[in-house]
C-alpha cells in the first residue's frame, strides 16, 4: 500500500481509476454469465434477466463516468476522428510498446462499439418475449407481439456480435503482449503499468 505515496507511484502514473477497473471486471463477469445463462442456463430465465439488469446499470454508470470521470475515463479524451485512428493504426506494426496513457484511438472505438452493442442487447432483451418458450422480458407488455419477436431475433443475433467484440478485445491484448511486448492486463488490475 505504501507505493501509493512513494516515488514509484509518480514514475508510474495511475492509468485506470478504481471505478473504471471495477466496471471493467464486473462487466466481464456479467457478460460472460449472461451469455452462459442465455445459451445453457435454466429454462426459467430469471437469473439471466437479473444479470441483464446489472449490465444495464453498469453501462449507465460508465456512460455517466464518461462525462464526469477521471481523464482517461472521459469519452472526449479517447473518442477521436478518422485521422488519429489512421495515424495510430500505422504504428501498429512497429515492434515496440505504444505506452498510450489510456485508450488508444483504435481501442477507444472498440470501447464505444462494446458499450453500444451491449446497450442494444440490454434494450432488446427488455422488450423481448416468446410465448412459445414462455419467456417474457419485463417491458414486453408495452409493445406488440410482433415487436417482441423482432426484439428477440435481434437479441439472439447480437450475442455472436458481442462474442466477436470480446474475441477482438482479447486478441488485441495478446497482440500487444506478444508483438509489441506491452502488458495491458496489469494496469487494468492495479491501475498502473508494471514498473
Amino acid at each position, binding site marked *: 500500500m505504501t507505493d501509493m505515496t512513494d516515488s514509484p507511484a509518480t514514475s508510474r502514473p495511475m492509468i485506470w481509476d478504481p471505478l473504471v477497473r471495477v466496471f471493467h471486471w464486473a462487466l466481464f463477469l456479467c457478460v460472460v454469465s449472461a451469455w452462459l445463462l442465455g445459451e445453457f442456463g*435454466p*429454462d*426459467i430465465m430469471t437469473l439471466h434477466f437479473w444479470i441483464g439488469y446489472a449490465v444495464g446499470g453498469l453501462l449507465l454508470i460508465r456512460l455517466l463516468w464518461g462525462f464526469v470521470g477521471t481523464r482517461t475515463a472521459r469519452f472526449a479524451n479517447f473518442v477521436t476522428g478518422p485521422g488519429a485512428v489512421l495515424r495510430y493504426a500505422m504504428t501498429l506494426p512497429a515492434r515496440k510498446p505504444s505506452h498510450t496513457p489510456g485508450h488508444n484511438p483504435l481501442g477507444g472505438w472498440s470501447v464505444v462499439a462494446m458499450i453500444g452493442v451491449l446497450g442494444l442487447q440490454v434494450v432488446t432483451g427488455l422488450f423481448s418475449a*416468446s*410465448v*412459445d*418458450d*414462455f*419467456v*417474457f422480458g419485463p417491458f414486453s407488455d408495452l409493445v406488440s407481439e410482433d415487436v417482441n419477436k423482432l426484439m428477440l431475433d435481434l437479441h439472439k443475433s447480437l450475442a455472436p456480435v458481442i462474442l466477436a467484440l470480446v474475441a477482438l478485445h482479447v486478441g488485441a491484448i495478446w497482440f500487444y503482449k506478444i508483438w509489441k511486448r506491452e502488458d495491458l492486463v496489469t494496469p487494468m488490475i492495479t491501475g498502473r503499468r508494471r514498473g
Partner: protein
Amino acid sequence: MRKILLALPVAALALGTVAYASDAKDVLDAREAYFKSLGKSMKAMMGVAKSFDAEAAKAEAATLEKILATDAGPLFAPGTSSTDFPGETEAKASIWANMDDFGAKGKAMHEAGAEVITAANAGDAAAFGAALQKMGGTCKACHDDYREEDE
C-alpha cells in the same frame, strides 16, 4: 368383423381425432393445431396469473386439462420431421433419434401441467403462478433441443 374394421377409420374421421390421421400431412396439421391450442392456453393462463381470478383460473385449467388429455404420440408419427417436410414443420429429426428423452420432456410438461390444474382448482394464486412458470420452462426445454429456429 370386416365391416367394423372398415367403419373404424370413418368413425375416426367423423370424430376428428388425430389418432387415425391418414397421412403425414394430416399429422403435421394436427400437430400444429395441438401446439397452437397449447400456446393459446398458456397465454390465457399467463393473463390470469397476472391478476389472479379464481373462476378464470378454473376455466382455463379445464381447457388445459382437455388439451393435455390428447394422446400426443400419434402427433409424432415417424416420417413427419422437418427433414421430411422442410419449411412445413419445425420438428427436428433428432426427436425420433432421441424418443426416450423427447418422451421424458413431454412427461415433464404433463406433470407441470397437472400442478397448474391442481393449483387453479385450489384457487392458490402463488402456486398457480409458480406451476405455470415451471410448465413454461418445460416448453422451452423441449424447443431448445427439438424445434427448428424459425427465421
